[in-house]
């Protein structure tokens, strides 16, 4: 398998988690566990659908500031290899139906490591992903804050560039 990393659009991260692969896999693949960590507190996550098979739907809702649950993520699993790999995208919905908005494909891999499990994520974004980020902003965890920070950054940027 050759999967290349495009540094302009992709991000990769890897972490050694001190627990057996089975435990990490269960935390990901059990909706009740997944809800415990997918979004940062105090936001709450609810898994509506997590059909772990190629073509299976993946739908979550989020509640922010104690409000009602709202759509968060809708996607489709592309590959699910027990204890090894989960690939999902929001370019498709369940049963391979093309999605209105598309943003990314994520490849999650689990490997044995002397200290537990090596957990890796390779997240590929499409170009112009920024546009979609703005469109779906309200549905993504923590992005309200992220956008504020971005705005702050731009304001600083502009202030700096207006100085002769």
């Amino acid at each position, binding site marked *: 398998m050759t999967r290349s990393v495009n540094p302009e659009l992709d991000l990769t991260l890897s972490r050694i988690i001190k627990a057996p692969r089975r435990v990490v896999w269960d935390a990901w693949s059990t909706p009740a566990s997944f809800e415990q960590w997918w979004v*940062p507190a105090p936001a709450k996550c609810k898994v509506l659908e997590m059909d772990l098979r190629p073509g299976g739907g993946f739908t979550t809702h989020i509640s922010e500031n104690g409000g009602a649950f709202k759509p968060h993520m809708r996607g489709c699993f592309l590959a699910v290899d027990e204890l090894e790999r989960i690939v999902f995208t929001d370019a498709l919905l369940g049963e391979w139906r093309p999605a209105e908005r598309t943003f990314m494909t994520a490849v999650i891999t689990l490997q044995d490591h002397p200290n537990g499990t090596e957990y890796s994520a390779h997240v590929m*974004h499409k*170009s*112009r992903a920024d546009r979609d*980020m703005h469109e779906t902003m309200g549905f993504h965890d923590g992005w309200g804050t992220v956008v504020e920070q971005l705005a702050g950054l731009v304001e600083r940027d502009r202030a700096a560039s207006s100085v002769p």
Partner: protein
Amino acid sequence: MEHYSDRLTGIFQALADPTRRAVLGRLGKGPASISELARPFDMALPSFMKHIRFLEGSGLIRTRKTGRVRTCSIERKSFAAAEAWLSTQRALWEGRTDRLEQFVTTTHARDKSK
């Protein structure tokens, strides 16, 4: 936020083309004239100039004319903006991984002590 979104869209469009990426790669090593930049490409000058104008319009490079020679150089600030977008995505995934790790190690420790 609007202007920021437009700016990022321009940056990603500019980076989507191999000729423009090559030009940026060359300019990463230092400023260069248009003719020097065009040399490696089998392309008519007007077509090449379109790429240069695209890069300039997206704010990734700036050009300056001295006499008959137009010199291009990289605009570092725009790269910082593209980097910031990816950084927010990274922060999101790092956060998720932190929480997964925390969740897994605490539940695992609890299960083991049962």
